């Protein structure tokens, strides 16, 4: 490849990296925490204990709801008792509306649940949304296409980075020059992290682009590519759902039993009735972590309502049968880390944090390169950085440490405040939004006001302290759900405290090498 072409790709890599690095940092950092989404929700909002006033009969609950709402539209979801709910609950979900949750009282009457947390008002969901929005304080439906475009740019950064590194790949890959030359050190770390986790990053870039842009792409395909339209095109390659009269429907518990008979390792968690004009489609959601799952944390079995037979195994973990469905499931599972159980989740947590470090080191390289370029020998080590470098430098420090501090702090706060929160005041989500963005903005403002070199040490100690809140809260009220989160935050506390302690070695705050 021509030297000029490599130079072009280096320029592209630098600019797309600096444009999107901070959003991607937050997306990866929150993404790492989102591997503990279920535990985080149970830690801050422990599920309500079983009540004698509520019926344990899920079949009766479904029958009562369907009898009371014969013309229900949208999706009716029966959730069997599990880690998140001690007794069966049923949600009625319609497009554009909040789900409404119901339980059956021991008196046989349907009761609308007031205590069931809304799906978008949990701590786990806050972390997930932060990940999906890349920390942007805008509605999810606006943020997702933006993140989709950012992911395309991220793919470009990956490809251009590989092109730049190719000529010296073998020579430089495992050559970590840890020493006085900070730029070289960060370059080596950046290259090693990037190449070692390249397959992971390529899958994440593609899948994140798809998750953010799929509505737009489907719309374009529907209007311009599929001459019969998208719906008719999808129907041609789908198994038609069987039509069953309502009187012949099996109760949900019997359908669950028959599904487990046909797929012994599949653990059903709930059942959906999708109310379509042509008749309802029934599907059982559950997991089998030995295999790739089609959805974020679960797979699906399409079932015959009259016999319980699984008539479409396309989304059944490990049993899809076709290369196309297996390929699709693998792409989903490789994004969500929803296979292999806890070891893979921990691995993904580490990969998420290392991804965040990749973007952080990328920004540091940009700053160091421009600092060195401006530092003439006659100016001496005390020369001040140019203004634009100082701004990017403060934003990098403030945003990265702000995210690393605000995320655990808001989780600890939610753990303490959730029991006393009043939903009409905005609920837990208001606490998360308020605390996170207040701390995040304050860190950025502090870094800009004080300058990177003066702010770094204080911000590092602050980040360590915020992380320490989580293990402290776990120790004060021991619960199995907080253990893993507590351990992760304890390690992060030590890491940031070590970085802060190292900062005392920086004698001159003006020398520009305080990373």
């Amino acid at each position, binding site marked *: 490849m021509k030297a000029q072409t490599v130079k*072009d790709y280096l320029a592209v890599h630098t600019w797309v990296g600096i444009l999107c690095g901070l959003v991607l940092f937050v997306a990866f950092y929150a993404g790492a925490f989102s591997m503990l989404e279920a535990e985080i929700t149970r830690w801050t909002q422990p599920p309500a204990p079983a009540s004698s006033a509520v019926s344990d009969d899920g079949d009766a609950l479904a029958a009562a709801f369907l009898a009371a709402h014969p013309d229900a539209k949208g999706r009716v979801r029966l959730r069997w008792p599990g880690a998140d709910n001690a007794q069966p609950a049923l949600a009625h979900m319609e497009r554009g509306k909040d789900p409404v949750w119901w339980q059956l009282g021991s008196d046989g009457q349907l009761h609308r649940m007031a205590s069931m947390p809304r799906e978008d008002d949990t701590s786990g969901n806050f972390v997930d949304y932060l990940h999906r929005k890349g920390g942007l304080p805008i509605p999810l439906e606006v943020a997702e296409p933006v993140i989709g475009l950012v992911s395309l740019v991220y793919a470009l950064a990956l490809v251009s980075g590989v092109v730049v590194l190719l000529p010296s790949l073998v020579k430089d890959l495992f050559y970590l020059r840890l020493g006085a030359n900070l730029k070289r050190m960060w370059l080596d770390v950046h290259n090693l992290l990037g190449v070692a986790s390249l397959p992971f990053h390529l899958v994440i870039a593609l899948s994140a682009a798809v998750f953010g842009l*799929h509505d737009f792409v489907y719309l374009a395909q529907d209007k*311009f590519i599929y*001459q019969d339209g998208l719906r008719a095109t999808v129907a041609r*390659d789908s198994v038609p759902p069987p039509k069953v009269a309502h009187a012949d429907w099996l109760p949900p518990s019997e359908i669950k039993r028959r599904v487990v008979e046909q797929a012994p390792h599949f653990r059903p968690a709930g059942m959906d009735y999708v109310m379509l004009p042509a008749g309802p489609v029934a599907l059982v959601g559950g997991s089998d972590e030995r295999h790739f799952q089609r959805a974020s944390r679960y797979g699906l079995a399409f079932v015959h309502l009259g016999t319980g037979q699984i008539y479409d195994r396309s989304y059944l973990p490990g049993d899809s049968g076709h290369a196309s469905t297996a390929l699709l499931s693998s*792409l989903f599972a490789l994004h969500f880390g929803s296979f292999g159980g806890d070891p893979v989740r921990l691995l993904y947590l580490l990969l998420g944090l290392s991804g965040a470090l990749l973007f952080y080191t990328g920004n540091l390289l940009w700053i160091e390169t421009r600092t060195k370029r401006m530092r003439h020998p006659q100016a001496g080590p005390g020369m001040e950085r140019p203004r634009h470098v100082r701004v990017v430098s403060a934003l990098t420090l403030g945003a990265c440490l702000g995210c690393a501090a605000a995320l655990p702090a808001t989780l600890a706060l939610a753990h303490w405040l959730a029991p006393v929160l009043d939903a009409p005041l905005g609920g837990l989500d208001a606490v998360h939004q308020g605390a996170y963005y207040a701390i995040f903005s304050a860190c950025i403002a502090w870094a800009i006001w004080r300058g990177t070199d003066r702010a770094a040490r204080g911000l590092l100690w602050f980040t360590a302290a915020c992380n320490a809140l989580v293990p402290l809260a776990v120790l004060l009220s021991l619960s199995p759900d907080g253990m893993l989160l507590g351990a992760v935050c304890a390690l992060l506390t030590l890491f940031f405290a070590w970085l802060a302690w190292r900062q005392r070695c920086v004698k001159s705050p003006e020398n520009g090498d305080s990373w």
Partner: protein
Amino acid sequence: MSRASPGQAAPRHLLFKGLTGFLLGFPLALWLSWVLTYGGLLPAYVPVRDQIAMWLAVLLWGAAPCIAFLAQSRRQCAIAFLLANAAAFAAWRVLQ
């Protein structure tokens, strides 16, 4: 990023190439993804074929700006993408 000044290398027009790849890469990706998934290469029945086509479209769209910087000039970049679009459109029309 690539502004010319006396005594410096010729401008590389990286922004132009990147935007050309991004904008002209989108219709190209839509047509190519249809040709590859519905154009007769795959069996008659492929579950979730529409989803595969959508993933492929995004993959190809993402790849377009990546290769745009191989062009030596703005003209070469624009012509290459326009010709590729014309060829993909023709294939899409013929294979309907």
